[in-house]
């Protein structure tokens, strides 16, 4: 191992340790005191509920675990969202964390749930809501109340698309929250715990003068026997989860894209080879991904080294792990075909950071090719943006960049994005950044994303300020300039880091590079729950 590789690895491991620490904050929920109190009531934590809900030994891909990072709210935003397999069905699962302020929704909670329901919608996933929430965080209600209505709209629209929704109510689900069970296709309530009403006893007293209690207004037993809002009365939390699993088991769920499930190499020996497609593990060890990313993102790295570590290795039906397209043209962008867990994928990966006209044209053609054959696309970001300068402007870089963005925007095969390193400027758009709605977007701890690099941004601001001062005939305050540059550089640096961006819900999570293959494999399986075909038309390609 060279010194440089060793330094890359050490830096990455340090960032991964920080990531673990941030995830641990989300897992800790409201802290030991509230967790203990919750357990003492015989209740389970949201992740304990999820662990029981998903199939034994199946994967759970938690989404937006760092939501709210850097805000005044608890990391994780008092809700857990993710994709799990229940009775063999890939489901979008949300679970309130009642140890964080009673599971009350804050603005980040709402954003996180919206993102989850967008994923459910785009990928056609049944939704299971594990409900126990005190309602809206009242001090921030102005940011929650009006947009929050979408949550209920999304549930019933899912139902209308023939994608079932299930609510398991473990505790409070009152006022607006009552519409989660209300809008779900199936509702299970835990006896003695679920509390579902529009107005509680004090509000009812104020409104009508009627004396009432929790149980008669919204108890599980009442809803199961009288109102009919509960379809099932669960004896306890375990029972609710058991019933939830039985409901999913009876959904007659069939994935929209039917293909014989690819089989991993462990089973390829015996029965698998005969009737299922098998795949091989990568030709190079994924562990090496930690060595690749330079500590200074100005240094490019070869994305082929990433591809060979995340895509299927050489094996039957996959004679080469990566068939590169147009290798000699526009070499700053690598394009080509590969497979992940037996599923075909087209890959666009930055090789030299900068995108020139050739790279843009190559990308445009490649995206159209993937759409022609209905193959999903994977974007591996490490770009500083489109080339600037008179030569390039005159060569029509905007035009070609626009072609690429046009193709990305109108492509209708599913897109997955992984921000490995830099993702700056319009390069972020061309490479299918968040605004271009990739089905999933994950970030490595080494990533940085902003309109431009912090130093460049500070420098640009300094030049502009200096020009303004000169125009006014004033002396330029060099000391203030240095302070300004330092401040801007520091704050842009901070705001371009993955935890911050993940906290803003600008990705679906920060992942360990060694998990990239697994995350993408789950995503590629998940997207097959909704039908997709390549685009037949694009916007006008300016020439």
């Amino acid at each position, binding site marked *: 191992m060279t010194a440089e590789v060793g330094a890359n690895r050490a830096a990455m491991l340090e960032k991964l340790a920080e990531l673990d620490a941030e995830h641990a904050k989300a897992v800790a929920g409201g802290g030991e005191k509230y967790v203990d109190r919750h357990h003492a009531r015989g209740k389970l934590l949201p992740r304990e509920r999820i662990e029981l809900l998903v199939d034994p030994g199946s994967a759970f891909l938690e989404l937006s675990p760092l939501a709210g990072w850097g805000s005044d709210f608890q990391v994780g935003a008092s809700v857990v969202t993710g994709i799990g397999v229940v009775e063999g069905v890939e489901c979008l699962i949300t679970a309130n964390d009642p140890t964080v302020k009673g599971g009350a929704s804050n603005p980040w909670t709402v954003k996180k749930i919206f993102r989850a329901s967008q994923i459910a919608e785009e990928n056609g996933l049944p939704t299971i809501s594990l409900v126990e929430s005190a309602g809206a965080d009242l001090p921030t209600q102005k940011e929650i109340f009006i947009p929050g209505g979408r949550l209920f709209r999304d549930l019933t629209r899912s139902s209308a698309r023939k994608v079932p929704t299930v609510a398991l109510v473990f505790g409070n689900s009152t006022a607006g929250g009552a519409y989660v069970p209300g809008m779900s296709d199936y509702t299970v309530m835990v006896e003695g715990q679920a509390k579902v009403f529009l107005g509680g006893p004090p509000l009812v007293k104020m409104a009508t003068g009627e004396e009432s209690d929790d149980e008669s207004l919204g108890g599980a037993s009442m809803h199961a026997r009288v109102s009919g809002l509960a379809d099932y009365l669960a004896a306890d939390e*375990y029972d609710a989860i058991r019933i939830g699993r039985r409901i999913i088991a009876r959904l007659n769920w069939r994935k929209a894209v039917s293909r014989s499930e690819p089989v991993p190499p462990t089973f390829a020996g015996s029965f698998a080879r005969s009737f299922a497609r098998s795949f091989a593990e990568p030709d190079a060890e994924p562990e090496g991904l930690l060595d690749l990313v330079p500590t200074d993102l100005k240094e490019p790295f070869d994305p082929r080294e990433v591809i060979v570590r995340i895509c299927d290795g050489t094996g039957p039906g996959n004679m080469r792990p990566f068939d590169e397209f147009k290798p000699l043209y526009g070499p700053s962008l690598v394009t080509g075909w590969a497979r992940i867990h037996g599923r075909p994928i087209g890959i666009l990966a930055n090789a030299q950071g900068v995108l020139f006209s050739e790279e843009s044209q190559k990308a445009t053609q490649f995206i159209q090719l993937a759409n022609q054959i209905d193959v999903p696309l994977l974007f591996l970001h490490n770009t500083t943006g489109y080339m600037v300068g008179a030569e390039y402007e005159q060569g029509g870089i905007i035009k070609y960049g626009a072609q690429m963005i046009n193709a990305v925007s109108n492509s209708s095969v599913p897109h997955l994005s992984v921000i490995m390193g830099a993702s700056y400027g319009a390069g972020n758009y061309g490479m299918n950044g968040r605004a271009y709605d990739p089905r999933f977007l994950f970030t490595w701890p080494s990533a940085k994303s902003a309109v431009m690099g912090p130093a460049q941004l500070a420098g640009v601001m300094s030049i502009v300020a200096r020009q303004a001062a000169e125009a006014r005939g004033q002396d330029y305050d060099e000391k203030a300039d240095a302070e300004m540059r330092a401040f801007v550089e520091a704050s842009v640096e901070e705001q371009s880091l993955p935890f911050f961006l993940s906290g803003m819900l600008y990705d679906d999570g920060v992942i360990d590079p060694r998990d990239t293959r697994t995350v993408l494999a789950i995503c590629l399986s998940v997207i097959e729950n909704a039908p997709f075909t390549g685009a037949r038309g694009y916007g006008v390609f300016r020439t």
Partner: protein
Amino acid sequence: MIKRLLVANRGEIARRVFATCRRLGIETVAVHSDADAGMPFVREADLAVRLAGDAPAETYLRGDLLVEAAQRSGADAVHPGYGFLSESADFARAVIGAGLTWVGPTPESIEDMGSKVRAKDLMRRAGVPVLDAPSQPTEADLPLLVKASAGGGGRGMRVVRSLDELTGSVTAAEAEARSAFGDGRVFLEPYVEHGRHVEVQVVGHPGGVLVLGERDCSVQRRHQKIVEEAPAPALPDATRTALHEAARAAAAAIDYRGAGTVEFLYDADSDRFYFLEMNTRLQVEHPVTELVHGVDLVELQLAVAEGRSPDPRTIGETYGHAVEARLYAEDPSTDWQPQSGTLTAMEVPGVDGEFDLLNRPGLRLDSGVQPGSTVSIHYDAMLAKVIAWAPTREQAVRRLAAALRGARLHGIVTNRDLLVEILEDPAFAAGGVGTAFLEEHPPSPAVPVGDHAIAAAIALAERDRASRTVQQGVPVAWRNVVSQPQRTEFEGDLAVEWYGGRDGYAVVGVTVVSASPTEVTLERDSVATTYAVSIAGSRVDVDAPGGHRALTTVPRFADPADAVASGSLLAPMPGTVVSVAVEKGDQVDAGQPVLVLEAMKMQHTVTAPHAGTVTQIDVRTGSQVAAGEILAVVEET
């Protein structure tokens, strides 16, 4: 000459007799109950006749049906095996009366020896030592043993250690004997504390009595043998010769024809022996004699039945030592409760032959079951006999212990661990243990499961992985945000916590080297051990060089609808309800008997767990119940 032989029996002994028949060119006929329809002995026979029903009383004990089956199938001879009607003079007469050859002694010999009281008289007259109790016992005569005259298998047998107990024990033994054998007669004999059970194999034939050495069958549980060997260890030569001569005299006294066993109680302290009884049939433990003496006892039985004396050239030379262990589906830790269920795996490593004399020392297996066989509640729970034959006793014991330890016996609880423990016990190794051996050396508590449970948990996870329908290649229990370990729970408050993910399984203290649904290799302290795992329903059997453990998984969820009302009385074992003491609505006290359940040779009284009212009673006398079935509900008052 016998052309076609019907075996009026089942399981292992039927297969044993068929094996010899095949070698001799005799066609074979099996009879089978409905429960036994799928058993190997039925398939192996040339012809099979169904006996409708399951209970022995409807099937294997129905002499009339058996004779009819023989006639219907064109058999010209009947072999009774052991147990069932093998010592029924009436059945022998019925067979002979139907013009068929009876492979066994004459009905008269059976009757002579069938009554223990009469047999003792006969033996006393023939000069064979017998144990006699005084008609009016005093303190000096204690301890005494109450035995059923018609008994066998330990039923109706009671040890009396004080005169106060005597009357009660006799009454109880009479009741037990009456219900078990239809004959309530009992008798007393002195109880020899450290007695050994030594028996002599004889074959009476037209030319005289052939004595084929002795067997020591002292290791017994509930008066039933589980480990037997030939020759008897730690026996002075003079005594051995005297035993053989006494047995010869006993057989000669009644002009005995066929294979029989004369059983003696040997008191090592005084170096004296006493006649106990004579079994007028082939014994379960006959293979040890066969191996040591190089003789096929079934072949000799058939020869005698055909009116010939055994050909001396069918008898080999006497060599070495043989030890047999009886594998039972029973749980030594719960008072030997017989077990029923499906035997999902049965492999004994290193078997050199089945039902075979072996042409050189080795391992023999006599088994009535095969993988997939159902062990039902209706019959004896013996699965197989494993017999090791070696030049010396030490070698035979070592071979047998290794074979048992390495055997894969899955799906059902067996006495295997106990057998291994016996064979490895220093007292047993020294030779000459008495019939009280197991009472003095009770089975050790189960060894902690340790890494077996880890292996089971990992294999279960691999099974779940293999049965996935989506995301098949994704690592087991992968999480991008890890919050807690995976938990695999087993009955007995046993839980294994493990993590999955990118780097495979992680368990504290061990390294998972490799894993599949059937095999898991774990490394602990740099030593790797491979565990073979077999999963059938909730039961997980784990075999390793260190031994076998069976685990039962606890489901993640229990449907409350399946929950049992408190106060429910559950059947502790599969069996038949023999009596019901209460009716619905009755008030009962805590501990009051509610009903009696019988399984195999055991009666189990089910009592009220607390004082209350019987609110439900789902069974009546004669009901067949499965283990765990609700028998009655006593609501607490």
